[in-house]
């Protein structure tokens, strides 16, 4: 028995010792840190990686709503951007491994924007007030980004909008017209005529205005599927390899559960009411708008709309010719070059 207890005691001690010894690497040239931001009853993880020797931090707002920060830590962001600057992968409220305790009223765009500002305060508190912050939003992150900047843009030196949905309210009608346009083009050049003809039938069968959230979900799903078709036709580059280890950093059930819950709370209001188009002029920090030419999820029309309406005196629109909704994966080198160039010019 004594031998048995000794064996298990040894096992327990070694497990605890391993846990305690898991300290973060605070070397600024190669940060590898996970910290949580506690704000308004939520605890949200920020995974900070890369070179912070210049105290430049690129905060990435993930898609979704309900996505997860580390989904972007692969390909070019890890391999190129992290070499130059620190990247902050943030799990938003109700997303990824964020936890907390709040009512359904405790999660909305306003509070989530305040969470991002809270994150910026934490970074400045931890790494110094001279930290230089850049904000990047992809897809839904392109909704949350403007919402944050319209509350307070002073913490940030630049805004990078990557296929961002600053006008969620306008998405439904833009989906329909974009599907019709792309389908006509593809049929015209003889690509996958059967599929694109079905797409035209599908959108023709929908109401012309947003009424039913399920129609919106169907359009969104079809948009991802359409991009796969464009990829098969060679119009969009095949997405490069991503960080496979990310699957071990998130419990899948937690991830799926969070995304379903968060979307069920947020989506209806987003699709019906949320647009920042008329207020983009209030964003005056330098801005870079990056868009995949063949984005079916947040169509290209929104790229010009974002660029035209941003109030920044220094702004640039870059269209990625061989990309869909995720240019960071389909044209990774160009993506990294453009982001690093933008930060270099504005840091």
């Amino acid at each position, binding site marked *: *028995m004594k031998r*048995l207890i000794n064996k*298990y005691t040894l*096992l*327990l001690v070694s*497990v605890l010792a*391993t*846990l305690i010894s*898991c300290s*973060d690497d605070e070397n600024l040239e190669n940060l590898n*840190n*996970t*910290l*949580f*931001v*506690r*704000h308004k009853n*939520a*605890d949200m*993880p920020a*995974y900070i990686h890369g070179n912070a020797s210049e105290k430049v931090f690129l905060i990435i707002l993930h898609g979704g709503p309900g996505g997860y920060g580390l989904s972007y830590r692969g390909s070019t962001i890890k391999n190129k951007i992290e070499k130059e600057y620190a990247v902050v992968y943030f799990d938003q*409220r*109700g997303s990824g*491994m*964020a*936890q*907390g*305790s*709040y*009512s*359904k009223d*405790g*999660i909305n765009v306003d509070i989530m924007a305040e969470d991002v500002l*809270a994150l910026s*305060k*934490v970074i400045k*508190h*931890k790494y110094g007030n001279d930290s230089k912050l850049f904000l990047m939003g992809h897809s839904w992150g392109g909704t949350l980004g403007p919402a944050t900047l319209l509350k307070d843009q002073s913490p940030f030196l630049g805004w990078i909008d990557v296929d961002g949905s600053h006008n969620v309210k306008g998405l439904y009608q833009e989906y329909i017209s974009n599907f019709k346009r792309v389908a006509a083009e593809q049929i015209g050049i003889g690509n996958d005529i059967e599929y694109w003809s079905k797409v035209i039938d599908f959108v023709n069968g929908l109401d012309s205005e947003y009424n039913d959230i399920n129609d919106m979900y169907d359009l969104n799903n079809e948009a991802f599927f359409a991009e796969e078709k464009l990829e098969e036709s060679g119009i969009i580059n095949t997405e490069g390899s991503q960080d496979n*280890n990310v*699957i*071990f*950093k*998130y*419990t*899948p*059930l*937690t991830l799926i*559960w*969070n995304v379903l*819950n*968060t979307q069920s*709370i947020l989506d209806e209001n987003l699709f019906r009411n949320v647009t920042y188009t008329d207020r983009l002029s209030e964003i005056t920090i330098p801005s870079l708008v990056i868009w995949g030419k063949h984005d079916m999820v947040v169509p290209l029309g929104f790229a010009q709309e974002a660029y035209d309406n941003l109030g920044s005196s220094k702004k640039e629109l870059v269209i990625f010719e061989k990309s869909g909704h995720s240019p960071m994966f389909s044209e990774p080198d160009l993506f990294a070059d453009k982001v690093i160039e933008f930060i270099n010019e504005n840091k």
Partner: protein
Amino acid sequence: MKLQLQLLIPLILSLIKGYSQSIEDTKNTSLANQTFLERTEFKIAYSGSIFWNNGLNFGTEYLLKETIKVKNRRGSQRTNSHQFLLNGNLGFTTNFATSTDTGVFTNYGITWRRTNKKGKQFSIEFNPLGYYRSFLPETYKVSGDNVKKVFLPGRGYYAPSISVGIGKQRKNKKITRRYFNINFMLRTPYNAGALPSFNFQYGYRFNFKKKKKNEKID
């Protein structure tokens, strides 16, 4: 629907009838003479989902009631024991990759366990009283412009659980059984609702029971 019920009800009744007819003898084991340690078993198990969360679970079980049922089926006699046990657990779990899902949990409830003649066991463990305390890495609380590092950051959740498992009894051993459970735990309130989680538990039960000479364990 009506037709389905008409077919289903006689089927269930005939099964129950058949089952009851097969029971030849049922008797309750007298536990009054057993000491606390004789009625108590301890357990230690790996608890986790292998790829994501990993941890250990320690527990104890106290035998409340035991019934021995002897059945005659297809000419052979089968002896099964059915036990009701009070159950308590204390465990911890973590995901080593990011430390974003580390926690300590404890839960209490009741276990029903069936053991057949060969020592194969099936059990259902229901723990309505449960608590999960998460432990977060470095955490900063933001209130307005004020940023403050949190001491011992984490959150407490009501965490009831249910486990369904199989096991094998080991005769005449201090380590009396090994078992495998699939555990479902709910953490609530979690974000704007509740969080379900599934874990495996693989471990051993043991006791501090003094063995009597010529003791026979079924």
